[in-house]
Structures are given as structure tokens and as C-alpha cells.
């Protein structure tokens, strides 16, 4: 087991090999154990380091999660959102990045609507860049927290059968999860209407199915994705009701799952669309747990990227 990650940035799930990914998950577990039951949930590790949350796109849980993670490690946190900044006056990503660089940011957590924006950013700044979601490309810390949640609930990742259902085409969560879960030895099946699968899905390390009912009985994990109406510029399915009937997770479908299978959702979820309210609130659901795990995993990522000398 190595002590540190191979890469200075975390831009996509493929930056992590099996050792790296395992190191992040183990570190997150140790941090969680170290903070469990403590009154002072703060560690001095990143004292004097500055983390900038650079959010060009709306986010609730990811931004708060990164902010909390950085603060629990005693880093100074600057939150930057495009609204109310010079970006609305026409400043480019590069100029924004150079400004932050001049202010001495050690880590930049970036969310952007353009796929690849974090990669560009990483070439302009000296600090570490963490991708917090770029367009329809990747969201690696979400995949890490999902893997962490699966490992915690099921005790393993190797050989775990994960079904990812919904709007795969627009989902950065799906892309990162497919890559990371494959690295960690899980078997992934994608289920979606043909219109919501990306071109080239045939080259991904996954099995593709169009029939949710057929794959549920053998699944260990069902991960539901939100239908991203805001990214849709065409009609991908006839109606919300039809989508929900064929690809939504309701109580009848959950009854087909094995006893210890779990239901996941990266959030934000649309109750009644891809997931029924009673399923989201059931004991199988890890949706709230995923949020808590997100803080531990992001603390692990920030520690491993910013804790050392680099």
C-alpha cells in the first residue's frame, strides 16, 4: 500500500489506480473512526492551507460537503460562485484562475458546466485541482463516496454487482462510477432507454440492458440517476410517466431485490420520477448516509492531495 497518491490533481476517476482508490477509501474510514463520537470534530492537519471552492454551476451538497471537509481539516476556505463575481462581467476561466493563484490557493475545488474545464485549470495553477463535477464528463469524489458507501454497507467491492439506472447520457456521476467501480473490481450494469445511453458505451467496461426488472434480482446495489431535464435539448423519451413506469424504482421493483441489496442515489433526486418516495426513505436506501460519507471521503482526498509538501 502506497503512502500517497500518484497524481497531484484529482480530475477524473481514471487518475486513481486500485492502490490509489483503496488508499482514499481506507483513509476516509480511518478519519471517520478517528472523529466518531468526538465533540471536537476538527483536525489541525491543513492549518494555514487555503482551499478555494470555485463553483460555476449550482450545487448544494457538493459545495457544502467540500467546505465542511476543508474546515474540519482546519484549512482556510474561500467560496466562489460565478453569480455575483467578475465572471458575470465577462472574466474568463483563466483570468479567474490566475487571480486565485496570485492569492495563494493551495487547492482549488472546481465545478463547471463545460466538460474538461478542470483539466485546463490544472495547467494554469500551481496548486492541486479537484474536479467537483464538469459538464457531463466526471465527478470523481461522488464515485469515491459511492464506493465508500457500498464497501461500508456490503463489506466489499470486489465482485459486487452494481446496476446504474437512468440518464446515463448526461451523467458525470455514472461516468466516474463506471470507471472507479471497474478499477475496484465491481461488475457494473447500465440500464437506460437507448436514447439516454452515450454513443460508444460499447467500449465501456459494463454490461448494458434495457430491462430493469430483469437485472434487479441479481443486483447487490441499485444506483438511480436523476433525469437531467436542464441538460436535455431534445425529447429523449415520450413522457415522464412512461419513463417512470419503465425505469423508475418503486416498491414493486424493490421487492424483486435480494434481502441485503441497497438503493443509492447521488442526489438531488426527483421523488416520483426515478425513485418512489417510500423507496427513498426505506432502510435499504443509503441516500442520507451518502451525504455523510461524502464529507469523510473529501477529507481523505484533501488530506492526501494537500497534506504533504508538494
Amino acid at each position, binding site marked *: 500500500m502506497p503512502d500517497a497518491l500518484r497524481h497531484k490533481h484529482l480530475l477524473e476517476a481514471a487518475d486513481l489506480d486500485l492502490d490509489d482508490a483503496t488508499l482514499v477509501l481506507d483513509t476516509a474510514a480511518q478519519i471517520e473512526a478517528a472523529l466518531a463520537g468526538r465533540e471536537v470534530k476538527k483536525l489541525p492537519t491543513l492549518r494555514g492551507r487555503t482551499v478555494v471552492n470555485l463553483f460555476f454551476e449550482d450545487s448544494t451538497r457538493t459545495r457544502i460537503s467540500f467546505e465542511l471537509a476543508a474546515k474540519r481539516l482546519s484549512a482556510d476556505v474561500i467560496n466562489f460562485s460565478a453569480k455575483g463575481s467578475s465572471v458575470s462581467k465577462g472574466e474568463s476561466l483563466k483570468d479567474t484562475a490566475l487571480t486565485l493563484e496570485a492569492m495563494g490557493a493551495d487547492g482549488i475545488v472546481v465545478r463547471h458546466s463545460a466538460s474538461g474545464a478542470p483539466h485546463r485549470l490544472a495547467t494554469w495553477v500551481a496548486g492541486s485541482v479537484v474536479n467537483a463535477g464538469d459538464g457531463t464528463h466526471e465527478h470523481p469524489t461522488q464515485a469515491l463516496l459511492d464506493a465508500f458507501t457500498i464497501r461500508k454497507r456490503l463489506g466489499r467491492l470486489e465482485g459486487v454487482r452494481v446496476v446504474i439506472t437512468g440518464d446515463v447520457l448526461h451523467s458525470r456521476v455514472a461516468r466516474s462510477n463506471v470507471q472507479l467501480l471497474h478499477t475496484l473490481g465491481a461488475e457494473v450494469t447500465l440500464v437506460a432507454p437507448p436514447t439516454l445511453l452515450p454513443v460508444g458505451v460499447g467500449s465501456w467496461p459494463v454490461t448494458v440492458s434495457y430491462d430493469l426488472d430483469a437485472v434487479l434480482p441479481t443486483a447487490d446495489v441499485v444506483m438511480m440517476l436523476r433525469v437531467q431535464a436542464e441538460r436535455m435539448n431534445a425529447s429523449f423519451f415520450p413522457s415522464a410517466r412512461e419513463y417512470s413506469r419503465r425505469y423508475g424504482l418503486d416498491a414493486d421493483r424493490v421487492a424483486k431485490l435480494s434481502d441485503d441489496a441497497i438503493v443509492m442515489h447521488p442526489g438531488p433526486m426527483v421523488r416520483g420520477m426515478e425513485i418512489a418516495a417510500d423507496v427513498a426513505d426505506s432502510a435499504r436506501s443509503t441516500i442520507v448516509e451518502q451525504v455523510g460519507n461524502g464529507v469523510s471521503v473529501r477529507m481523505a482526498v484533501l488530506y*492526501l492531495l494537500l497534506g504533504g509538501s508538494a
Partner: protein
Amino acid sequence: MPEPQRLLTADDVTRVVDRMAHQLIERAAGSATGAEGGGDGLDGLADLVLIGIPTRGAPLARRLAARIETFTGTPVDVGAVDITLYRDDLRTRGVRALEATHLPDAGIDGRLVVLVDDVLFSGRSVRAALDGLRDVGRPRAVQLAVLVDRGHRELPIKADFVGKNVPTARSQQVKVRLAEVDGEDGVTVTDA
């Protein structure tokens, strides 16, 4: 490559651990909060918590607890506090993998905590452990037990229980091996 020189054999380690266990019993009995001269003085052991500093301090703390229980019949609480996230040398030496932290269910508030480590050198690990303890509770008192004290302190820190004092040169390397981690017991010193 200079040959490592053996300071303690496996049997020596066992004897040293036994002696330290007896010293801990004596000290805990003597410091029992409610001791009014009566009883066997073992009440103080309920108050005692052994906290190991990973890697090798953790199994060492478990061994000491097991020996104390063998000698007195009283179980002693054990825990471990990983100090990596409290270190002052992460920037110069880089990040490293974390190790397990766990505390006894009864916590450490108001109790006698004895920190346990394999080698006492600069004292910086102990400082980090003290910082870590401060975040988990407020012990009545904190003491320090080490298997080997090799000198060269960089901070005003002193051990309360020492298995063996070993005068060394700063450049030498003292290596403690424990069966739980390394497959066998022993202490060696190597010239740089």
C-alpha cells in the same frame, strides 16, 4: 550496509513488558482516586486507560493490558490514537497512510491515560499524541510508557515508564520489532 546490533532479544522484550506491567499496576494502585488506605489498591486500575501510538505502540499497549490482567485479574481499557493528522512534519516528509484510532467505550474523561509507544526519540510523536488526546477528552492525568528511550529529545518531554534506556548517537537507527506487526520480537540498533 552496517549490521544491526541486537539490544533486546525476544525473551528480553517479554521480561521488559512484564516489568513495565508491574510498574503500571503499582503506580495505578498508588494513585487510585478513592483510595483511603483500605482494599488491595487495585481500584486504580479501573481508572487506567492504555492508549497506544500506532504502529507499534498499539500492540504494545494491548500486551501491557493483557499482562496487567494476568497479574491482577482486573481487565484494563486499551485504545489507540493515530497521530498522523497531528504531525508537524507532514509538509517536509509528505503525507502517509493513516492507521486505526479507537477509544474505549467509557472514554478518557477524568481517567489516568498512559500513552504507550515503542521508541522515545525527539518527543514529537508524543506532542502530536497529546494534541490528539486534547480533542477526544480531558483525562485526569497523562503519563508516558515507552519500550526504549534512546535520548535526543527536541521537546520538554519525559517518559514515566521506560523499558530500557539506550544511549545512542543521533545518526543511529533504533528498530523495535513486535510479533503482531513484524512476525517476531526484538530491538536492534544500526549505525548510519
